[in-house]
C-alpha cells in the first residue's frame, strides 16, 4: 500500500503543466464558491446572531404599520416576559441618500437586551443623559470617520427634516457576528416629534426579553392573544424568525446565489473529470501491468481516487488561501458601502471547510468513471496486445 500511496503522489505531479492548470482551475472554482458562500453567510448573518432569549412583536399586517405604546404595559404582565423594550425604524441618511445605514430610535432599556453590544460605561451614561445623543457601531464610525463628541445631521425620509445628533458612544460587538453598522438614538425624541403632529406614542416593534426560551411558543401565543381583537393585532416571534422574514425577502437572490454555487461545483467536477479521464486513459497500460502483478481493483481505485484527492486538495488549499485575501480585500469595501445589508462580510472557517469538502467531493465523484473503467477493463485489453 505504501508504494501505491507514493505512486499516487508522484502520478499527481507527473504532468506538471496539466496539474498546474487543473489546480489553478479548481482554485478559481473554490474562490468563486467561497465568495458566494460568504455572500450567503452575510445574508444569513442576522440569523446566526439571533438570541433565543429575545422575542419580537410587530404589527400583524406588516412591519410598516406601527403599534401603540400602550401595549407595552400589557406585555410586561405576560408570565415569562422579563423585560419589554421597543424601537422604531428611522430610515434617514447621512449627507447622501446612497450613504445608507440603519438608524433605530429605541427606549433606554433596549441596549440591556443586547449584551453582545459593548459600550464603555461612561459613554453609556453620557448617551442616556442626553436626548440629542446617539451611539453608533464601530464599523459605522470607521466608515464615516466619526469620533465620540462629533455632531452629525441625519436627514429623515420617513420622519422628514434634518435631525442633529451628538455621538456619545461607539459600541463594538463581543461576538464576531455582532452588527456594528447601526446607529441608535432616543425613541423619546421621535415620540415628541410624533406627538407634535398628534400621531400618539407609537413603536415599530417590541423587543421582549425572556429567561426560558423553552417557553417561547407559549409566550408568543399569549402576547398575540392579548391583542388579537384590537386595532393593532401583533405577530410575535423569536428574533431568529423575525430576521428570517427579512432574509426571505431576498429569496430569489439567495436562490440565484445557491444555483451559482452549484454551477461552480459542477465546473470543478468537470475540470477534475477531464483531468482524471485523460490521466487514466494515458495510464491504462500501467493499470494492466499492475493487475498482471496481482494488484486488485481497490488498489487501482486508491491510485486513481488518491490522485484526484491530491490534485483537488492542492486546488482547494490554494483557492481558500486566495479567498482569505480576496474576501478580506472586498469585505472591507462591502462592509463600508453595503454595511446594512452585509454587516459582517468575512470568510468563516465553516465556509472554508465547506469549500474544501465540496471540492474534494467533486474530485471523488469525478474519478468514479475512470476508476470503473480501469477496474473493469480486461488486462489483456489494457496491455493492448491481442494476437
Amino acid at each position, binding site marked *: 500500500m505504501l508504494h*501505491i500511496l507514493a505512486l499516487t503522489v508522484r502520478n499527481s505531479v*507527473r504532468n506538471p503543466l496539466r496539474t498546474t492548470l487543473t489546480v489553478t482551475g479548481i482554485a478559481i472554482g473554490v474562490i468563486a464558491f467561497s465568495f458566494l458562500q460568504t455572500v450567503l453567510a452575510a445574508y444569513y448573518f442576522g440569523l446566526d446572531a439571533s438570541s433565543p432569549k429575545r422575542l419580537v412583536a410587530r404589527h400583524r399586517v406588516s412591519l410598516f404599520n406601527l403599534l401603540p405604546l400602550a401595549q407595552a404595559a400589557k406585555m410586561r404582565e405576560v408570565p415569562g416576559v422579563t423585560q419589554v423594550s421597543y424601537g422604531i425604524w428611522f430610515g434617514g441618511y447621512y449627507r447622501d441618500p446612497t450613504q445608507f445605514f440603519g438608524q433605530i430610535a429605541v427606549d433606554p432599556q433596549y441596549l440591556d437586551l443586547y449584551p453582545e453590544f459593548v459600550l464603555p460605561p461612561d459613554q453609556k451614561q453620557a448617551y442616556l443623559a442626553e436626548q440629542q445623543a446617539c451611539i453608533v457601531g464601530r464599523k459605522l464610525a470607521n466608515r464615516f470617520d466619526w469620533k465620540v463628541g462629533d455632531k452629525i445631521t441625519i436627514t429623515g425620509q420617513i420622519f422628514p427634516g434634518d435631525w442633529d445628533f451628538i455621538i456619545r458612544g461607539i459600541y463594538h460587538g463581543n461576538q464576531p457576528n455582532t452588527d456594528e453598522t447601526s446607529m441608535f438614538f432616543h425613541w423619546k425624541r421621535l415620540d415628541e416629534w410624533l406627538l407634535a403632529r398628534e400621531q400618539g406614542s407609537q413603536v415599530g416593534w417590541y423587543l421582549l426579553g425572556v429567561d426560558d426560551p423553552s417557553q417561547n411558543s407559549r409566550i408568543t401565543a399569549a402576547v398575540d392573544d392579548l391583542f388579537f381583537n384590537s386595532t393593532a393585532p401583533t405577530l410575535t416571534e423569536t428574533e431568529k424568525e423575525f430576521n428570517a422574514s427579512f432574509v426571505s425577502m431576498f429569496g430569489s437572490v439567495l436562490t440565484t446565489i445557491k444555483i451559482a454555487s452549484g454551477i461552480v461545483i459542477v465546473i470543478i467536477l468537470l475540470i477534475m473529470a477531464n483531468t482524471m479521464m485523460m490521466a487514466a486513459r494515458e495510464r491504462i497500460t500501467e493499470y494492466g501491468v499492475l*493487475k*498482471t502483478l*496481482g494488484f*486488485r481493483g481497490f488498489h487501482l481505485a486508491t491510485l486513481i481516487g488518491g490522485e484526484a484527492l491530491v490534485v483537488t486538495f492542492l486546488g482547494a488549499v490554494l483557492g481558500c488561501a486566495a479567498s482569505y485575501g480576496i474576501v478580506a480585500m472586498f469585505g472591507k469595501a462591502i462592509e463600508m458601502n453595503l454595511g446594512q445589508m452585509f454587516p459582517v462580510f468575512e470568510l468563516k472557517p465553516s465556509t472554508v471547510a465547506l469549500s474544501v469538502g465540496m471540492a474534494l467531493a467533486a474530485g471523488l465523484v469525478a474519478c468514479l468513471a475512470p476508476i470503473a473503467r480501469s477496474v473493469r477493463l480486461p488486462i489483456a485489453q489494457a496491455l493492448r496486445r491481442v494476437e
Partner: protein
Amino acid sequence: MSVQTAVATDVVRMSGVTKVYHRDTLRIPVLDGIDMTIREGEFLALQGPSGSGKTTLLNLIAGIDRPSSGSIVVSGTDIAKLSESALARWRARHVGFIFQFYHLIPVLTARQNVELPLTLTSLSRSQRKEHVATVLKIVGLEDRMDHLPRQLSGGQEQRVAIARAIVSDPTILLADEPTGDLDAKSAEEILVLLERLNKEFGKTIVMVTHDPRAAVRAHAIRHLDKGVLD
C-alpha cells in the same frame, strides 16, 4: 471453487482450451482445442505467425485472460475457475510476467519497480529490500537501483522488468517477446539471463518469440498456427 491437483512435475496442464473473441456479431476463434503440458524446470519457446494466438495462450497461462472452454491447471490450481480477486492473488504468487515493452512504472525507480510485487506480500520492509537487492544483483543492475526507467537503456529496462518478474519467486516465468524491442547485443544479454534463470535457478519459462535465435535457447519449441498447436 474447485481445485484440481496436477501431476507434481507438471507446472501447466491445458486440456481442450479454446478462446473465442466476439466483436459485435463477429465470432473470432483464436485458440482451438489446445492440449499442452509444461513440466517443472522446462524452458519452452512458443512460435508462430502474427495472429496465431501465441500471446493469447500466454495470457491464459498467466491468468490474465480466461478461456472460452477447457481447463488450465497451473501449479495444481484450475485457474479458469477462480474468481477475479482470487485470480489476482494467485497471479501475485505464481506468475512472473515479462513484457516486450518492459512496462516499468516511469515514476518509480528500478528498486521501487522491482519491489512492487512484494508490497502485496507480508514481507517486512527490510526483507523486501533484501529480496530486491538480490534480484537486481542477479540481473546485474545493483548499481542502477535508484535510476528511473528513463535513465536506463532498453536492455537495462528489460533486466529490471525481469527482476520484477522473479522477485517474488514465482512458479512460472512468462515472457512475451522479451527481446522484441531490443538491439542484438541487449537481446543476447536478456537471453543469457533467461537461460541462467532456467539452468541455475530452475525457473520454468514459457517464452513467446518471433526470433529464431531466441527460440533455440529453449529446451523445446512449439509452433502455433491459426490457434492450433503442432
